[in-house]
């Protein structure tokens, strides 16, 4: 596994390699600058907007943020916010969306790849069409469903209902593309592998579990990343469907930057919030990246 791209592979050797590295650096410079500004500011007593800004290292921003205290300098009276709760909320939404997307897309992609049923190719094309609709455009319709269903939900369960609704609604936006991605991975698993399991005494389900799923792991990882990020980053659905006091990190940061609050907001604290907001994304990506690049081959020829 050690050879190949990166780790001093043939791609980055020689003059050509230097050119490539320079080009990549140049292309990612804006991204590097914005992220370094964000992360440095979260540990500074002022906004680190250029390399010449003098700043002092401090953990004060993080303390204030984790205690839920925003806008400390403007002298405005503020109510502490329950940051831990927002973090948990974000995790619930992101995790929930991931689970729902995976459950729906793995099973349907397998069916699309392996089974013959009425309107199969028609439905595949329909999925692309579904993906073409932006979530924002659908929000009116989704809201109508929300209100309609809400009338059947007892008031005590309303909060749970909101969470479940957000998760399912947000997940359904991701599912069409997820199915397409996964179908491609399933298509690459040879039929013989499943047949081998069935001849060896397994059922179709055993074959899926033991022979097929391990080989589509990279696809599952990719879909999981997209779904997780979709849930983690979502603003509109969370904003519309969760009760106002149930914020996620995304809506919380947004509320701090929204109209009328920006003047009173101490931006280094918001930077701390933004940095925290980044961390799980980075962790999740690092963990799944190995899976993404992992390709199981061998034992299969022809």
């Amino acid at each position, binding site marked *: 596994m050690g050879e190949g791209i990166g780790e001093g592979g043939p791609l980055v050797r020689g003059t050509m390699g230097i050119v490539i590295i320079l080009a990549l650096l140049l292309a990612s410079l804006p991204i590097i600058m914005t992220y370094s500004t964000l992360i440095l500011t979260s540990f500074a007593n002022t906004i680190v907007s250029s390399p010449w800004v003098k700043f002092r290292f401090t953990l004060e921003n993080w303390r204030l943020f984790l205690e839920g205290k925003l806008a400390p300098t403007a002298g405005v009276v503020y109510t502490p916010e329950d940051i831990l709760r927002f973090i948990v909320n974000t995790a619930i939404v992101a995790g929930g969306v991931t689970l729902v997307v995976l459950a729906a897309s793995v099973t349907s992609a397998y069916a699309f790849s392996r089974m013959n049923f009425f309107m199969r190719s028609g439905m595949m094309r329909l999925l692309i069409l579904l993906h073409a609709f932006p979530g924002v455009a659908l929000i009116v319709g989704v809201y109508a469903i929300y209100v309609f269903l809400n009338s059947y939900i007892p008031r005590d369960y309303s909060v749970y209902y909101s969470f479940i609704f957000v998760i399912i609604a947000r997940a359904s936006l991701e599912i069409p593309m997820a199915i397409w991605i996964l179908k491609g991975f399933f298509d690459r698993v040879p039929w*013989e592998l499943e047949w081998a399991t069935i001849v060896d005494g397994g059922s179709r389900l055993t074959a899926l579990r033991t022979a097929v799923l391990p080989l589509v792991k990279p696809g599952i990882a990719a879909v999981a990343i997209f779904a997780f990020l979709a849930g983690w980053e979502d603003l509109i659905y969370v904003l519309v469907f969760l009760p106002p006091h149930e914020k996620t990190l995304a809506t919380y940061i947004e509320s701090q930057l929204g109209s009328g609050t920006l003047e009173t907001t101490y931006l280094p604290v918001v930077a701390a919030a933004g940095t925290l907001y980044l961390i799980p994304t980075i962790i999740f990506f690092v963990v799944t990246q190995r899976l993404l690049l992992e390709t199981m081959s061998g034992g299969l020829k022809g």
Partner: protein
Amino acid sequence: MVEVRLEGVTKRFGRVTAVNNVNLTFGDGEFTALLGPSGSGKSTILYLVAGIYKPSKGRIYFGDRDVTDLMPNERNIGLVFQNYALYPHMTVYDNIAFPLKLRKTPPEVIRDKVLEVAKFLHIHELLDRYPAQLSGGQQQRVALARALVKEPEVLLLDEPLSNLDALLRIKIRSELKRIQKELGVTAIYVTHDQSEALAMADKVVVINRGVIQQEAPPDTIYNEPRNVFVASFIGSPPANIFPATMDYTEEPCINLPGGTRHCVEDEYASVLWRMKPSKVIVGFRPEHAEIVENPVDGRPVIVGEVYTVEPLGRENIVTVASEDIHLKVITPPEVRPEAGELVYVAVEKGKLMLFDPQTEVNLRYIAREWSQGG
């Protein structure tokens, strides 16, 4: 072990008929090769026996047991796929143990059986490796071990050697045959390689377009092909086939290309008298002819011009053009005529094959059917 029988089996995929009304018996403990070009339906027959495909019509029996509606896992078969289909995420040990694990065999028994079959196939030192770390030949053996570990009644092999290099193929070929005889398992072997089929099988079944062309021991397939397809498919190079006109004066005589005549005296004569076809299809094998300078004795002779000579070391393949027909003749290395030279191709006595121009069936078989029918 068990005898496998197909009765009137037809398999359609949509509008395509892959296997058409096949009646076939695979003898108990016999090694049968299904031989045909790609798309002939030979693999379909194998997967029908395996139970992966269900016949559109007809029944399949293992001995007295009707298995037509049974799932593959209820049939006790071992199957080796062309691409081996090893589980890439499992070690060699786990791959071989997998069928036993699915049967809920106790772990100690699994261990013993896996080690036994691994030793038998000389792969016991590879048990901790992953398939990707093995050579093609080793992967092939692991696939065979996985098929054999459950002690199947029927061993099915789908072109298991086609992904190996030529040297290894010849080595494993003989090994596979030894293993099959040692275990006495009924084996069905799909291949498009005639030399594999002829070398390994007790019985060869030649298939084309879903229909059985001939079912016979290798010798018979080679020496007495049932029809033009079998004659032109078997042999390397395959048999020379060309049309010729007939006339019947005192004997049935064939007008060969180049203007010579050959009058038939052997067992073909009676059929020819009875059918009196005005045309026949003539065939002979390149190795059953020689290049001579003068036409001699009563052998069939064709006059032609040397077209190309391909020296292969052990022998030469000489192509002779006669009228617009190209004939191939295998000659000893020292017989190397010049291109453009006028030569005579003499066919060994009794080696000329005659086929019915309509049905393309070997007239010899028509004669036999008549004599059997009275």
